[in-house]
């Protein structure tokens, strides 16, 4: 299937067709649906992938980590907006339902799933930690795939996840327990 990307522009569309929904869903989870950030990130991800595909083709058996890696870089460019959004979600606890329009739509984007306390905890992670955590938790990448996506050793993924667990436990007031 990777051979699709070896092919002409029309053929590369096959890679887009296979993966764009997934990448868009991930970008939406990270950035919400407002301001078109998720749309921009998705479009840009595939444009970059398209331009780099001659290199990619020779190297990878599965396009997903590669595409997520590109998307992750782009999402990092929207870090401030992501954090603002997470903080807005975190405030929903404090303000109940009296939200400003921006916050209200941010909440809608998250479809209520992201609990305020968790949003607050995510906002307090470093962006590298958040990226690593969410590739694993929201994009269903394995540690190996996450390592590929972020161009870091798999050991670094493990240690980041370990650190993130501890932070979350602390921020979410979960009971201390032996780390897995």
């Amino acid at each position: 299937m990777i051979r699709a990307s070896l092919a002409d522009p029309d053929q590369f569309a096959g890679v887009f067709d296979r993966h764009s929904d997934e990448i868009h869903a991930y970008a939406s989870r990270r950035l919400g649906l407002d301001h078109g950030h998720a749309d921009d990130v998705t479009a840009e991800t595939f444009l970059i992938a398209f331009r780099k595909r001659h290199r990619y083709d020779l190297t990878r058996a599965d396009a997903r980590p590669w595409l997520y890696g590109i998307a992750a870089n782009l999402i990092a460019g929207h870090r401030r907006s992501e954090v603002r959004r997470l903080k807005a979600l975190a405030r929903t606890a404090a303000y109940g339902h009296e939200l400003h329009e921006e916050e209200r739509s941010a909440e809608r984007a998250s479809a209520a799933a992201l609990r305020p306390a968790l949003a607050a905890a995510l906002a307090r992670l470093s962006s590298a930690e958040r990226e690593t955590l969410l590739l694993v938790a929201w994009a269903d990448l394995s540690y190996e795939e996450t390592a590929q996506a972020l161009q870091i050793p798999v050991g670094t993924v493990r240690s980041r996840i370990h650190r993130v667990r501890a932070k979350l436990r602390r921020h979410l007031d979960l009971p201390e327990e032996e780390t897995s």
Partner: protein
Amino acid sequence: MTDELDLVTGARPEVPAYSPTAKAAARRQLASPPARRRPYGFAIAGVAVVAGASVVAVNVLTAAASGTGHAPTVAGSAAPEPSRTVAALPDVTKMSASEVLGRAAQAATDLKPRNDQFVKVTSETMYSVIEAPTGSSGTGGPGKEPRYLYRDKRTIWLSVDGSKDGALTTEHLQPRPYPGWPVPKQAYAQAGTTESMKLPTCGQVPDTVYTRLERLPTSEKGMRAHLFAGPRTKNPAEVDAWTKVGDLLRETYMPAAQRAALFRAAATIPGVKVTGHVTDAASRSGIGVGLVRFGIREDLVFDAKTFELLGERGTVVDAKAAQAPVGSVLSSTAQLQVSIVDKAPDAPNPISEKQKYCG
């Protein structure tokens, strides 16, 4: 007890589907050309199958491999009158897809390369480019996104077993207008230039190296299952299967047994039809066999006499879906020569990003 990771996973926000408008806009952009380098990729099987170096030539077809623009074997190449074929030739317009592909299967030859050699493929290609509007945001209306058809002559060297770095030389040819759009000035800038680059393996073996293709099924049934086995997309299954057929043939050399199985299996894909006379990118006349995808009929072009694969061609059949007038040709390729050679030429490694993308 509560696991923090599960907690985060469980809180994964539900998100609505990717809006079709935004998606279509993003998809359209992909016809844009890479900023500098041309895509590594394209091209399809060929007319002249010759063996270089130490291998015996198997099947030298139309004499001049590189587009002299005529196909000596095919009647009607000068006058594209479908019903006027020379008596000795089969009346291709009446042939079914399975007949044409069956003949193509019989025509399959084998160069029997050694693992330490290279498949060298020379081709001419034309693909459409729709550049992103320079204003960045959203979908620019007509007139904002330059469109044209870019043309290249490519020679690629790919390791038979995928163990060695390959190389690609691209000579940029004059662009042609996309139907209804002026060719933007910048499109001419590269024409006449040639670039070469190394294609590093990065320690990975692509699926379409000879030694991998050799492991594919040799029966029609097995190959058909392979064509339909890929990951499911939202496209109709037959569209994906047809795409896979092209992917397996483009700038590759498929062993004869698998190639024959592939053509037979391709004939069983629902919707695959014969178009009659078409030409490839080198103006060689042939028979088109293909499937309609996104308003474009994607044909493989076969020599009408020998049934060797000449190239690929994309012809608009639904103006709305394809966003171009019916009958216009938006992609066209010609595989001019396939040979086996002992070495790939030295070429600059393109890779500042090597460390980045060679894991």
